[in-house]
């Protein structure tokens, strides 16, 4: 199984995990903005989600259209079992790489 996830893919998957079962474009965007203190373009989030969906790491389902969205439906995302395994492996690999290293300015 591939454990190669790009950093953008990792953070988007983590944001989905945090927002489940209400993970859609805006909630993922707001979560990333809140946690990373950074505005990620919405198109980047969608491009990443498309890639992850092609890999079979996330699946999407259509929600209901609402007036506040100009009559357009939400697209909800959730992580598949394969996606969770890949994310876990990817984060573990990062942890192994990080173990024992000392970063100047690190607080922990």
């Amino acid at each position: 199984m591939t454990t190669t996830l790009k950093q953008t893919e990792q953070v988007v998957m983590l944001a989905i995990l945090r927002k489940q079962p209400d993970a859609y474009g805006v909630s993922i965007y707001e979560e990333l903005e809140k946690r990373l203190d950074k505005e990620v373009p919405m198109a980047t989030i969608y491009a990443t989600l498309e890639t992850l969906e092609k890999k079979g790491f996330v699946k999407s389902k259509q929600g209901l259209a609402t007036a506040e969205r100009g009559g357009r439906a939400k697209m909800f995302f959730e992580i598949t079992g394969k996606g969770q395994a890949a994310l876990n492996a990817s984060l573990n690999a990062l942890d192994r790489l990080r173990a024992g290293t000392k970063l100047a300015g690190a607080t922990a």
Partner: protein
Amino acid sequence: MTEQEKQVEILQVREGRLLVRVGGKEHLVQLPPGAGRHDLIMHIHGALERQVLVELKEAGRFKGDSLHDPVAKAADRTGTVAPPAFAELVISFLAPKNSVQALLGDLHEMFRKNADRLGEREARRKYRMQVTASLVPLLWHWLKRIGFFTVLVDYFRSKLGL
């Protein structure tokens, strides 16, 4: 302060204007230029509904226009909150077909939130910024989708005789 002035009901809040009912008659209450939407929001959050009009009037900061006034009606129509059409068009052209509606819906939802929080002008600015920031990833994926890079590689291969 008359009894009629106390009976104020806010019917609608839109772009620096209040649609209020005073003594059974509807009025469009508008802050003068320069006062801004922020002042209006501060009044709404800071005061009870009935006090808003009175406070604005006491401060001499409103003019009441009847809804039956054609000028006021026209102003109300143009005040409809909508994201920039051109920016929407750019997104709908470049975004993948399967997610374009969800993406536009998300941008619309964020625009509405920003318009309520920061005013329409700032919301429009943020929308344009969001679309501008999205251009590179959208363009990149669009070029990949239409097979531009394959054509480019083939072109150079044929030119170099590989």
